[in-house]
């Protein structure tokens, strides 16, 4: 009797959080899958069951493929660079260097600013003719490039912003990992006369691998949830050159009001996230075995 009363108390503590989570995470996740099997209700036509038609339509939808393609390009264009920069930043900030705390602040500041604000500043930097990038381009004889307005440069321009914003965030995870390296390792290496590069390659870098894996998976997740910057800077344009998956879902749902198709697109996004999450669990499992 006592035991069951205790378990009732436990359930009572849990109930408010569980209820809200069910309502705003599990219910919508299930219903999204359900709705993706129906057509969107129109004024003259109610919603009806269409099985996998939304998904069949998706396979032939050039904008969907464009968005996926852009997302993958965005991931490839930003992640290796920002992770490499993050590692270099962390190595620097971890050293006894003049003005270390200023450096750390400078690297980390973009991370805490809202993407909307940051995007506004970058629109300014990219502005044709008056912006510094355009001026530099014309100085080198490229004429006044409209970075956000032309197909070839719009996505790379967003990538630069992404790298700038994320590198400082990843830096702190490397920094924590670097601070966990026992100092006697570097002492031993110094006694053995190992060069700094050798020490980095054979000791520091291998020790950073689990952190790198962790950062990589999270960076890919971030690449697929990237949307603020697209809304503020390009609205997916020009001609879908910067349409990313989440932006396309947003557009389909809240501009075209085709909520069923948006649900099908959301299911694809959820599946990508699930695959990434299981990859991460798998990697963590491995890490445990190493110890």
């Amino acid at each position: 009797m006592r035991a069951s009363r205790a378990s009732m108390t436990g359930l009572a503590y849990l109930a408010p959080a569980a209820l809200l989570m069910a309502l705003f995470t599990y219910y919508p996740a299930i219903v999204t899958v359900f709705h993706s099997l129906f057509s969107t209700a129109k004024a003259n036509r109610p919603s009806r069951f269409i099985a996998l038609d939304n998904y069949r339509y998706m396979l032939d939808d050039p904008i969907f493929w464009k968005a996926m393609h852009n997302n993958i390009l965005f991931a490839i264009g930003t992640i290796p660079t920002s992770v490499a920069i993050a590692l270099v930043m962390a190595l620097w900030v971890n050293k006894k260097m003049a003005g270390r705390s200023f450096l750390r602040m400078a690297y980390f500041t973009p991370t805490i600013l809202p993407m909307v604000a940051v995007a506004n500043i970058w629109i300014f930097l990219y502005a044709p003719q008056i912006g510094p990038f355009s001026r530099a381009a014309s100085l080198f004889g490229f004429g006044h490039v409209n970075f956000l307005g032309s197909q070839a440069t719009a996505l790379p321009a967003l990538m630069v912003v992404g790298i700038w914003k994320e590198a400082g965030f990843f830096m702190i995870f490397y920094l924590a990992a670097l601070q966990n390296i026992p100092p006697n390792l570097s002492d031993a290496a110094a006694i053995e006369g190992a060069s700094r590069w050798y020490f980095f390659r054979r000791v520091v870098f291998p020790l950073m691998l689990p952190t790198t894996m962790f950062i990589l998976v999270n960076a890919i997740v971030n690449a697929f949830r990237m949307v603020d910057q697209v809304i503020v800077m390009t609205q997916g344009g020009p001609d879908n050159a910067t349409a990313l998956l989440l932006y396309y879902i947003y557009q389909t749902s809240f501009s075209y009001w085709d909520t069923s198709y948006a649900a099908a697109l959301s299911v694809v996004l959820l599946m990508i996230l699930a695959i990434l999450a299981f990859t991460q669990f798998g990697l963590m499992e491995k890490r445990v075995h190493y110890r």
Partner: protein
Amino acid sequence: MIGTPNTPWLETAGAWLLAGLWILPLAYAFWAAFHAPGDATSLRLASPIVLDNFHYVWKVAPFPTYFLNTFMLVTLILVVQLVLATLAGFAFARYDFPFKNIIFGTILLQLMIVPEALMVENYRTINFFGLNDSILGMAVPYFASAFGIFLMRQTFKSIPKELDDAAVVEGATSVQVLWRVYVPLARPTLLAYGLVSVSYHWNNFLWPLIVSNSVDSRPLTVGLQVFSSVDQGINWSFISAATLLSVAPLLIAFLLFQKQFVQSFLRAGIR
């Protein structure tokens, strides 16, 4: 002398160059915000520093309302998140109930679902409850955080059980034990989680953009977007001033409590 004996000067120079590059966009925004629109893009050092842009922005757009909305949104989410995560974390750390592990695993599943992927259905739910265009509608999907629950459970589990046994012997009720023994000891975790939550929701954009459709409910991020894309045409001085205005509280807090911020982000992991 640049650099200490440990670091070659070339590396120090590289580190500073990168820092300069990283701070440049912000510096440029500062320049534009504090100069007359005509001087914004000229970079003539002699151009006079003015505060008119801030005046103008504050007067012409409802920034006070935006500030208030963001403040209410962030506070509401923070308070409810902390309370719910504390209660649920306590339940998982100190109570046994049927299906406990299955429920915990199910809650952790939320970690892999980014809330944006569910916006279509959540918008339907918000409308169903009549919460469209309200601060509560913007806040409620974030109230129950798997991450917060996980964090509190771990923290509570690390607290020795003898402490609360002693309190129970003295006749304390379960709520009193939680409030007097567990919560005070979990203060560092609560603080870390709080900092991450505040900076996440201060910056959050897409969901508030979807839910709000009037001045009365818009938070800063959405207001800033409306100001720069609709109200303003292209006047970089005004846009920069508005941008700096909306990031100022967070930026100042960050500069003052840099260490705590960095540590909180580390402790709280990715979210």
